[in-house]
């Protein structure tokens, strides 16, 4: 692989990171603000309609806030319009204070301060115009290979040979890689025992890192996007369906022939039965094209699934 082949082009952010996409995000701090967020976003921005933000206890509240902040902080996001309610557990105005430290465009509207949902949508629509206009002025520019953080989602089980081959190839190309694993497969090499471990949704460090404890593919993908991965590679296990994320393109690779045949339209690549070395070369080549703007199957069909891993039940 040559240096030229590894170079990418993306959207440079004020903090020096580089986005593979240039989204304006409309983020509700709580489930009750989801409908207002969706109405504000319309077709001009991406709204994440989720089921969280209230009645969290303990570490679960901190993790949820971390994921929300991480999604807004992902380099694929140019700016964020935050919609709060006012009485929620994860306070919109506290998220707003944290988002304001990101050196990105951020606007905040609170339903109970605005005089209700309808007024919030009207005010939010006009606030969104500036953010969309600002984002539209940013174009792609060349970036070094080390500006790229790939996320790798594996679901409840992973083919270790493919994992090793992909890891080697991605790191050799100069990019960073965060791997989501349910747990460490016993047949993985010893060096994995020394790899830095990242909490769900926490910022990925440079180089190789892993995050553990989640078996749902969609929840892994959401967490990887929150950790800053600009492109997620998803090794879809048998009898799982490919999904997207709201902000990071997901390259869906089938690892099982029957599953590929059943859902072929929604995959980017059939990796079933392929040699791990050759397959990893194809995946990494395609992932670089996706970074540079090639839409994934999930993006083409408009798949923007959001699924948050929870530590404890709602109370």
């Amino acid at each position, binding site marked *: 692989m040559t240096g030229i082949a590894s170079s990418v082009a993306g959207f440079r952010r004020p903090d020096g990171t580089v986005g593979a996409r240039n989204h304006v995000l409309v983020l509700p701090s709580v489930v*009750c603000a989801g*409908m207002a967020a969706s109405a504000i976003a319309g077709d001009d921005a991406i709204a994440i309609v989720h089921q969280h933000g209230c009645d969290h206890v303990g570490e679960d509240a901190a993790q949820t806030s971390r994921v929300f902040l991480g999604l807004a902080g992902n380099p694929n996001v140019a700016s964020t319009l935050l919609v709060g309610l*006012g009485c929620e557990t994860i306070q919109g105005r506290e998220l707003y204070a944290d988002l304001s430290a990101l050196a990105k465009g951020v606007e905040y509207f609170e*339903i109970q301060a605005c005089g209700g949902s309808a007024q919030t949508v009207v005010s939010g629509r006009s606030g969104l115009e500036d953010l969309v206009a600002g984002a539209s002025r940013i174009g792609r520019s060349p970036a070094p290979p080390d500006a790229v953080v790939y996320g790798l989602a594996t679901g409840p089980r992973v083919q270790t040979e493919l994992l090793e081959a992909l890891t080697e190839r991605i790191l050799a190309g100069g990019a960073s890689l965060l791997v989501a694993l349910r747990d460490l497969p016993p047949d993985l090499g010893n060096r994995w025992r020394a790899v830095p471990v990242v909490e769900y949704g926490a910022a990925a460090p440079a180089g190789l890192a892993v995050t553990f404890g989640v078996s749902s593919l969609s929840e892994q993908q959401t967490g990887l996007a929150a950790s800053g991965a600009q492109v997620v590679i998803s090794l879809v296990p048998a009898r799982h369906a490919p999904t997207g994320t709201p902000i990071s393109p997901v390259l869906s690779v089938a690892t099982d022939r029957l599953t590929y045949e*059943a859902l072929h339209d*929604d995959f980017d690549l059939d990796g079933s039965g392929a040699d791990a070395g050759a397959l990893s070369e194809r995946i990494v080549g395609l992932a670089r094209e996706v970074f540079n703007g090639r839409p994934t199957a999930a993006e083409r*069909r408009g798949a923007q*699934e959001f699924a948050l891993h929870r530590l404890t039940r*709602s*109370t």
Partner: protein
Amino acid sequence: MVAAPTLVPGYRRPNGWGVRNHTLILPTHTGANLAAKLIAAAAPPAIAVAHEWDGEPNDPDAPRVERTLAGFGANPNVAAVLVVGLFDSDRRVAELIAARSQRVEFFALADYGGVEATVRAAAPISALLAAAAATQSRVPVPVSEIILGLECGGSDSWSGVSANPALGVASDLLVEAGGTSILGETTELIGAEHLLAARAAEPAIGERLIGVVHAFETELAALGVDIRGANPAPGNIEGGLTTIEEKSLGAIKKAGTAPLVDVLEFAQRPSRPGLQYMDTPGHDIEQMVGMVAGGCQLVAFTTGRGTPTGSPIAPCLKIGSNSAMASHQAGDIDIDAGSILDGTETVTDVGRRIFERLLEVASGRPTLSELRGQRDFAISRTLHGVG
């Protein structure tokens, strides 16, 4: 006061009586959300919901989630359901709905090669279901067939003085008419459970109620969580509530004075009329979904801070605890119970107004959250034994 009507115009279903006539597109998993949304968009006025359930069939929460989805689809406000799954095994949810005599169709993404072809195949069927629903018209329904969900969210220190007791009066009127009310929110029963248990129709029902609350506190304690430290929420405290016990004492006033006739599991349908308790989380939307999955055709929701909640399929009547908030958020609040605080109406007056309005809403008058298209949805999980 004129005697309350004993009949309201509603929809006769094989599985009960509806107050709305929806066609519902119901995904079994996160991966089916997009297809459900596109099918509904291709065949209005069908309504799609979306959720974050991505569990495998052996997940400990799977039976609870399937019961919730099936109960939601079988709600009599729904004329017909189109279930969208990933694989053929997801047909289970459709089978549970069919077992409740609800009209249901099932599509799996894996039978069509993905989302796009599934939408092409399912949209005409969805249109047929919606067209069949449109031929149904309202007929007189006994008020005793109404199942009402009692909720509060974003409570303040006035909630327990104005809106909640007024809703309690309305609940009592419904129960006197032979209808059913469901109170939930186990979190907000903590500290007040003995008062409700004392109203149990039989001692065993009261014991089950106490058991539900203690099990919940024990479960949270095992997680290292002191619920009395996590609740009230920030907005409750800003609204003047100081402790979970204080919040609970106000919350149970929504249940009026009727005897407690049963304690239900989450999303379980009542088997007899009267006031029921359902074991739900305090999370407003998870709770509302559980009540609607249990058969509530109507929800009455009190709020002090101004919560905009609505359900995709059940009208949700919003009752404000104070006039300042109710006028500030006039587009979200259907009934202002603040008149109780300024002395222009009694709790009984407002309670009667709520009851009359509920019957109007049952007869077809839209609530503000319906007019705004506020369609909140969330799946309740316990996360027991889930890594």
